[in-house]
């Protein structure tokens, strides 16, 4: 059974069909790329998948479960986590607390225990710290644990956002232009990180990206969007060789 099955997903904004009849099937463990020119509707697809927008039509199934119409927070608990094109960190919280917010639903103690620091508080907090540090270690952020996240360099902020998403233990990870604004070195490092997550956590990843080197370097499959519609999809090599795709990107 496919991990993610999206059928006939559509949404209209003020008469404009921003996403039209979008279909996508992803198998577990796949690293999938969603590409297309600016304004093609890629981020809108992410927003539909994560419940930020409600689809006019269509069906989203994750691991056999129909999650169409679920709210954003529910969808995260269902198993889809994401990052954002314009980084959205909890900027006034320390690095480690950003990850601990991600761990929120994996650990539990009551509000009373929160207020009084009694009962499970100390034990669970310790476990959360350990788990968070493990994740920060994977992303090479453990030395910055007490920095305010707003004070991290740009590349590390992107990494922290991925770490926070991973903390929610997703089945599917959505990365929205993870390499945006990065220099070639940072991009190369990011590619390694993405590979690492996939291998270490056996993660299924869908990513939006403009950097063709990154896309052709790590994505196994691609879907190309243009004006809200699917222009092509399939194995990366075939898609990138498709004349229609080349035309859409470079123009006539």
């Amino acid at each position, binding site marked *: 059974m496919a991990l993610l099955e999206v059928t006939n997903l559509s949404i209209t904004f003020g008469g404009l069909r921003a996403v039209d009849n979008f279909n996508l099937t992803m198998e577990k463990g796949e690293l999938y790329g969603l590409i297309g020119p600016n304004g093609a509707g890629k981020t809108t697809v992410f927003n539909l998948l994560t419940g930020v927008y409600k689809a006019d039509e269509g069906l989203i199934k994750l691991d056999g479960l129909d999650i169409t119409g679920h709210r954003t927070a529910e969808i995260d608990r269902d198993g889809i986590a994401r990052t954002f094109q314009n980084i*959205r960190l*909890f*900027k*006034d*919280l320390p690095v480690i607390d950003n990850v601990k917010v991600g761990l*929120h639903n994996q650990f*539990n103690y009551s509000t009373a225990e929160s207020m*009084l620091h009694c009962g499970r508080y100390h034990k669970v907090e310790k476990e959360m710290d350990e788990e968070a540090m493990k994740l920060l270690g994977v992303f090479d952020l453990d030395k910055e644990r007490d920095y305010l996240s707003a004070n991290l360099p740009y590349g590390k902020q992107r990494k922290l956002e991925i770490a926070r998403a991973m903390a929610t233990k997703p089945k599917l990870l959505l990365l929205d232009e993870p390499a945006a604004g990065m220099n070639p070195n940072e991009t190369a490092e990011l590619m390694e990180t993405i590979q690492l997550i996939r291998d270490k956590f056996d993660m299924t990843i869908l990513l939006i990206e403009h950097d063709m080197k990154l896309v052709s370097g790590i994505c196994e499959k691609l879907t190309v969007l243009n004006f809200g519609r699917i222009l092509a999809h399939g194995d990366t090599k075939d898609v990138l060789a498709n004349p229609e795709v080349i035309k859409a990107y470079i123009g006539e």
Partner: protein
Amino acid sequence: MRKTQKKTLITYAIVIIAYIILEIFMKAGMMSSHLKGLLVPMVYYAIAAVALNLCVGILGELSLGHAGFMCVGAFSSAIVSQLLSGAIPDALRFILALIIGVVISALFGMLIGIPVLRLNGDYLAIVTLAFGEIIKNILNSIYLGVDSAGVHLSLKSQMALGLADDGKVLINGAMGITGTPQDSNFTIAIVVLLISLFIVQNMIDSRDGRAIMSIRDNRIASESVGINITKYKMTGFVVSAAIAGAAGVLFSHNIATMQATSQYFGYNVSIMILVYVVLGGIGNIRGSVIAACILYLLPELLRGLNKYRMLIYSIVLIVMMIINWSPALRDKRDKLRKKLMKGAGHGAA
């Protein structure tokens, strides 16, 4: 010891040391009766500031209605104390009044939070202001009494209550509540402040607190990692209302006759508390306590200047805000600091 834990311990230490010093002054007879009378109000405004900072600084929602929660706490606890006066030991009665005042304020927080927390920014501010005024307005116009037949409520007049001979008027319309036992004293007020600080500071350093602050920093990201926004906004708001209610309990047990007037519970009181919060530092709980104490005492201590004190206070407020917050001045300060650091560095080398 973790940094956050150290910070909270310092806050408790400051409060306790200040308490001991003031107590010594008081016992040694070095304090005027006027100043003595200011101590309890100073502490309950500090508690209200801690409560409001939880809402404004930690939850990130501007409330202009916290005086309303104080009002609820004050009236509900005063009623409890009046009813139980003489029936049970005084200490127990006060604790019961405190608990009930806090719980009812929390309930009002929940009731008001349901509609209010759906709104954003300045809309939320004006609606909380509206709620505060409604609470004040209603408490100002109801008559409440009890007799052997039960509870009587009227919107018209005391006579309309139709109390039996054994009856007792609890709320006398615009005349308010008279004769609440004067249980509040400086020590009790400090204990309530410490408990409030304990709860708020603990909360900030906890799973719930992180969830609340994540909503403040970025609501969309917070939702995307599975935080139940409604639940945690509500948690923060209700705890904040409850603590403001505790400040109200101290208020009502410190004043012989209490009315729901603008002077005590109007939006201007909410604004005054907001001024404490902002000058103490948004999100800085310790700062709220210190700012509330200094700013409450300041105009009172300026009484020598009598006519000019509020004028001076307002000018100081404006100038402080501009100095503290102006982006241009901040830049200049940062540059100056860097220069000085550099200078110091050279000196050391």
